[in-house]
């Protein structure tokens, strides 16, 4: 009996959570404005309650999937009794309603985390931060309840079985990519709430940046990993071996990443130097607004792609209104209050401050160009001016030169001093690194590819120009200690985080450069017995066989691969699957990954007479791309572990204790 009521329990839990979110939005903010401690004290319990009830609702939906309750429309549309249990679990977010519920759950989780981990913050700050997060949460929970209720039933006509999950989404990549990406998207709501709270309270000091920075870094790290996972998933799942398509949905995730990256650096300046305050606040607003814009683009159905499940116009309108209110209100607050928190601090033309400013500007320009390329077709379409698409050449033409330009400043930044330094000192410390980078970058294409390639040299010089100055800096720091080790040990975790993050960027750039210039792709017609040579490897088709999976049938090609030395032999087995519930074909790629190259074999279509179209690719250093992203994310997390954030927590706890003692005395 109870199991039959699960969807209703979930629905009620969601309603209660929405009411709690509304309370969390209104009461603490009003309390902070009128200085009423009792009202402000509503914030944390409401955050807890909201989290508990959204979690309950989420678990109820998951239970409906696990128990194959096809009376729930959402389950019937996206699951099937033959689906393996782990895909039933992930199918919850493989559709519009469930993914918005996951979004809300993440938001409630971040709010709850803030309420638990911000004991050291002033009471009015906590009230404002949680109040702002409650407002966002209320908007999204209402969105779920009004337009996208995942618990809707189709009674009394219960389907016998579900329509199955889209086969493209039946993959490990889908199990982890959306949660990571959402954690990043939604995580920026915390720094957004901090920024609005600072504006409302008129208080933006270095203590504020120390509170805001760890949250921003964690959200950014999640987003970085989420984007990398998306790219990796597209690479092996879509079957063409591309790792970035400049698809509007990909761009939607890249936009908040770019401004988020700018925000991380701007926060560093604000903490160290007390400058860039309004700029930091503005970036926080932009970053979260772009997260919302991404959600709008993906969820509203204005784009058609594997990500857009819904085509209900009321949903798009609802998110658009939500986006409009968020951006409009926060910019209004910014316009009214920013002059109170801003504070001019001078700095020299050659200084870390100004280099970080340039980095910020470049990142914002990149954001604008990507935004323009993504929205331009949509705007033209909306105004009835024609149907166009903006292709990858546009993005590459802009993004590549801007990235190279940014790398120039990325190399200088970590070496430069705050406030001001002599240009001659910068030159003295960097000329050698620059020279070495140029020489290596000019020679590498000759050694690696056999002929000179200006693009490869450009990419490599950019990557080396990030790494070598860092190496120089590390050597200088090691020399300063009594022994090299003590010199390096003295450095803070935040410094190491920066080193690892920048190294990650260099590795990603190297991967992008090499894979874009040295990939080999052959599309061939093959029958058993045929063989073809690609990039020194011989691929021979041995036989074709068939297999039956849990919910699909598949054709498998057995390909024997022999390396150029003739020694190493191995077998690769690409598949073409036919998923039975939807009658949908799917390519299952055979991959031979390696640190220096991937071999990639995919089956195209059957050509008759036992022949198949085969796509065979050689992808050098493609793994570096994602490895770099993982390093970037680790760098962000390493910086969070820095001692100064922990010390602050214990100090403020002591302060609380003494305050209580004073009060009781």
């Amino acid at each position, binding site marked *: 009996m109870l199991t039959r009521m699960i969807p209703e329990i979930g629905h009620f839990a969601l309603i209660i959570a929405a009411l709690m979110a509304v309370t969390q939005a209104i009461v603490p903010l009003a309390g902070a404005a009128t200085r009423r401690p009792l009202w402000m004290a509503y914030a944390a319990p409401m955050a807890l309650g909201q989290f508990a009830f959204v979690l309950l609702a989420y678990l109820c939906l998951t239970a409906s999937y696990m128990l194959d309750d096809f009376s729930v429309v959402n389950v019937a549309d996206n699951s099937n009794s033959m689906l393996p249990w782990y895909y039933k679990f992930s199918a919850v977010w493989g559709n519009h309603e469930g993914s918005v519920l996951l979004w809300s759950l993440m938001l409630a989780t971040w709010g709850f985390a803030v309420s638990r981990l911000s004991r050291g913050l002033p009471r009015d700050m906590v009230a404002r931060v949680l109040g702002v997060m409650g407002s966002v949460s209320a908007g999204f929970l209402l969105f779920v309840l009004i337009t996208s209720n995942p618990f809707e039933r189709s009674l009394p006509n219960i389907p016998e079985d579900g329509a199955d999950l889209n086969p493209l989404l039946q993959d490990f990549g889908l199990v982890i990519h959306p949660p990571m990406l959402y954690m990043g998207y939604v995580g920026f709501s915390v720094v957004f709430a901090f920024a609005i709270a600072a504006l409302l309270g008129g208080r933006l000091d270095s203590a504020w940046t120390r509170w805001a920075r760890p949250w921003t870094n964690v959200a950014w790290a999640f987003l970085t990993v989420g984007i990398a996972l998306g790219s990796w998933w597209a690479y092996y799942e879509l079957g063409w071996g591309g790792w970035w398509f400049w698809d509007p949905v990909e761009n939607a995730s890249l936009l908040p990443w770019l401004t988020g990256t700018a925000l991380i650096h701007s926060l560093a300046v604000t903490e160290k130097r007390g400058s860039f305050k309004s700029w930091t606040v503005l970036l926080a607003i932009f970053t979260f607004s772009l997260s919302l814009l991404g959600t709008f683009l993906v969820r509203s159905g204005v784009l058609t792609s594997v990500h857009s499940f819904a085509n209900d116009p009321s949903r798009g309108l609802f998110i658009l209104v939500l986006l409009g209110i968020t951006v409009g209100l926060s910019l209004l607050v910014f316009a009214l209050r920013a002059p109170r928190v801003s504070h001019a601090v001078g700095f020299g033309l050659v200084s870390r401050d100004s280099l970080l400013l340039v980095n910020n500007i470049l990142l914002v320009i990149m954001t604008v160009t990507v935004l323009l390329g993504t929205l*331009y077709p949509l705007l033209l379409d909306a105004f009835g001016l024609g149907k166009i698409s903006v292709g990858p050449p546009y993005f590459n033409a802009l993004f590549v*030169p801007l990235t190279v330009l940014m790398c120039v400043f990325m190399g200088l930044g970590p070496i430069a001093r705050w406030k001001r330094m002599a240009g001659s000192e910068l030159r003295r410390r960097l000329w050698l690194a620059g020279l070495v980078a140029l020489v290596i970058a000019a020679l590498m294409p000759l050694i690696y590819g056999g002929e000179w390639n200006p693009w490869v040299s450009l990419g490599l010089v950019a990557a080396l120009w990030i790494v070598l100055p860092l190496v120089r800096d590390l050597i200088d720091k090691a020399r300063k200690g009594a022994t090299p080790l003590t010199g390096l040990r003295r450095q803070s975790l935040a410094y190491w985080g920066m080193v690892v993050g920048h190294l990650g960027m260099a590795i990603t750039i190297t991967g992008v450069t090499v894979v874009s210039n040295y990939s080999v792709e052959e599309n061939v017609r093959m029958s058993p017995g045929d063989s073809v040579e690609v990039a020194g490897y011989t691929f021979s088709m041995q036989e074709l066989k068939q297999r039956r999976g849990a919910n699909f049938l598949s054709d498998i090609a057995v390909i024997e691969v022999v390396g150029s030395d003739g020694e190493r032999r191995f077998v690769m087995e690409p598949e073409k699957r036919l998923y039975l519930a939807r009658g949908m074909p799917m390519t299952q790629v055979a991959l031979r990954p390696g640190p220096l190259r991937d071999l990639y074999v995919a089956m195209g279509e059957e050509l008759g007479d036992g022949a198949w179209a085969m796509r065979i690719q050689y992808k050098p250093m493609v793994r570096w791309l994602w490895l770099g992203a993982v390093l970037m994310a680790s760098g962000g997390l390493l910086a969070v572990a820095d001692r100064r954030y922990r010390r602050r927590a214990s100090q403020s706890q002591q302060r609380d204790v003494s305050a209580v003692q004073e009060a009781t005395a």
Partner: protein
Amino acid sequence: MHPKRKQKLFIILGLLSLAAIAIGLTLYALRSNVNLFFSPVQIADGDAPVGRQIRAGGMVKEGSVERDDENLDVVFTVTDYVDDLEVRYSGILPDLFREGQGVVVVGELSESGHFEANEVMAKHDENYMPKEVAEALEDSGYSPEDYGVKVEGAD
């Protein structure tokens, strides 16, 4: 000039030149990389440019797909049920490509009137015409009920 002002001037000039470079690059890139969409009826009416990268789309006509026996060349007909467009392509077709389903092709229109595609995208929707094609048809004066009837003189 006062050193502070001079510094500000430098920063402002730097910002302006960066912005100018960015805008210039953007406009240049947009101008040369935008692909317009045409449906078979528009192409038949001579609205589409020849020898420029464009997109076209419609439904793959039943029984029109012909594979070469030797290589990966393929010829098929894309229709919006008003006019037909012959598409030539060499390579691997996407998983969801099937006769009677929606596709969008990217490539150039040749002098002889067929379409040389360098990319073929199958639409995820299995049941109806791609949105762009349906709208292009409506713009040309056809409603869904008219599909299949060539209305002379409609525009």
